[in-house]
């Protein structure tokens, strides 16, 4: 067996194992991953419904209620595609000394975590497709163009990888901290606020919108949504910025891992 096919087999087996891990506790999977996005959408739907009802005029910043809802449906779909929670198990693995095994396995920790991410993403693409077709059948969302689907999906997967690396960095903090969930929650709060997940960036002050363009935040919601909606004025620049942020966070994660391993005590060994 060649080195490449052996590597591929390891990745494929790990992805399959991750699938079965994710689907063993289906209720938990639903409550942890799908539930929060659905509740978030439910609140946003009701909130915007109340806002448009009490607002004099049909539009807010040029958006009608149905346009606003279309935006939020895509926010739901994109968040379903990539909003994982891998740092949770990662931090636990570090704290409980479980990563010791990865130091002797011919498959390192980063590869294992990436396989988990790929398994999660593939499962979530299925979940978000089902969600989309239900909402489409209910007439809440408009079917995107072919180019919209391709661009939206590509941006979502890249954004998913960026989110995964950010979560990985949060999880690696477990080398230094007893609890990392606080960092994770804080990251989620800030990302939700600045990414355009709560409302479109058009509603933010103009100066803040320009500044945010160069931060990783809008690439975690606003740009993937806009790609699906076909409202993409530019593609190349956002793509480059997104790739730069993925690169920077990956580099940071790798440095952090190297430093963290030096601190690692291997609890329970």
């Amino acid at each position: 067996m060649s080195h490449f096919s052996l590597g591929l087999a390891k990745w494929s087996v790990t992805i399959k194992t991750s699938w079965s891990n994710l689907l063993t506790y289906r209720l938990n999977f639903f409550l942890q991953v799908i539930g929060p996005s659905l509740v978030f959408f439910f609140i946003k739907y009701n909130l915007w419904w109340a806002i448009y009802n009490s607002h004099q005029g049909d539009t807010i910043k040029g958006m009608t209620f149905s346009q606003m809802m279309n935006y939020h449906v895509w926010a739901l779909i994109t968040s379903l595609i990539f909003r994982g929670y891998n740092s949770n198990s990662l931090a636990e693995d570090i704290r409980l000394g479980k990563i010791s095994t990865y130091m002797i396995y011919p498959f390192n920790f980063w590869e294992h975590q990436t396989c988990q991410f790929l398994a999660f993403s593939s499962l979530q693409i299925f979940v978000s497709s089902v969600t989309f077709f239900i909402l489409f059948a209910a007439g809440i969302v408009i079917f995107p163009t072919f180019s919209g689907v391709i661009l939206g999906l590509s941006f979502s997967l890249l954004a998913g990888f960026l989110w995964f690396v950010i979560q990985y960095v949060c999880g690696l903090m477990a080398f230094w901290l007893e609890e990392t969930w606080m960092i994770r929650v804080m990251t989620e709060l800030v990302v939700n606020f600045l990414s355009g997940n709560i409302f479109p960036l058009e509603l933010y002050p103009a100066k803040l919108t320009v500044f945010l363009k160069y931060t990783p935040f809008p690439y975690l919601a606003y740009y993937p949504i806009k790609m699906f909606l076909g409202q993409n004025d530019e593609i190349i620049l956002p793509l480059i910025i997104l790739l730069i942020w993925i690169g920077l966070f990956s580099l940071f994660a790798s440095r952090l891992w190297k430093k963290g391993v030096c601190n690692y005590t291997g609890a329970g060994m």
Partner: protein
Amino acid sequence: MNLTSFKSAKNYFAVYRSFINNSASSAMSFRLNFFLFILIDLSFLMVTLGTTDFIFNHISSIGNWNRDQMLFFITFVILVDWAHMFFLSENFWELSILIRTGQVDFIILRPLSPLFTLFFRHVRFACIFNCIPILSVLFYFGSRLHLALWQWPLVFFLAFLSLILMGLIEITTAMAIFWIQEGMGINFLRIQMQNISRWPDFIYKSFWRKIFIFFVPLLLIGSAPIDIIYNKNYKALLPMIAAIIILSFFVQFILARALRQYESSSS
């Protein structure tokens, strides 16, 4: 109150004092957590208020409420959230571990109500100072709404009732862990319920409003007290108290059922 129940209350109070002391000394071992908790609560406060403020840059009211009324409501709910985080929250995360490791055995054997030990054992001491910025913001928006001095004790009394109601709803929900063992999903469900209660009742469509008032009374946590404060509608206290009484009995009933089907993993 007879002598026996007075002694019993005194006993519970002494035990609770030891719980607090233990939680405090444990929290002091991880001092960085104090700093992180301040950061997390400040970001939560800023993000929640910022979201509402940004929306009000484009509109003048939501329902009949203006910016200050909405921001006071949100800060009030955040105050209740803080109290919940301080007094109760950690116990929900620990419950699944207690059940899976069979530690509930020892809790049942103690001469204390299992409900008390299961849900009041841990106090999240690290977030003790976080009430300062929340209270400051609450006073700020309260003063913008010209709340009279006599209304402030009422605000805190209502916040206390809201905490009890929120606690009872969440304890009832958390009991499901006895059946499904794994607690992460249920705890995520709890957090989603908190998210629903953080917005005033009038934003929800009629059907959902009825569900979240009469079936799962999440909207009474924030909206009923604010209705009393803004509109002096003291009748709004009735459904709140009724929900607290009904849920108090329901919690006891569910706990008895949960303990009956609990299979100790340690024995």
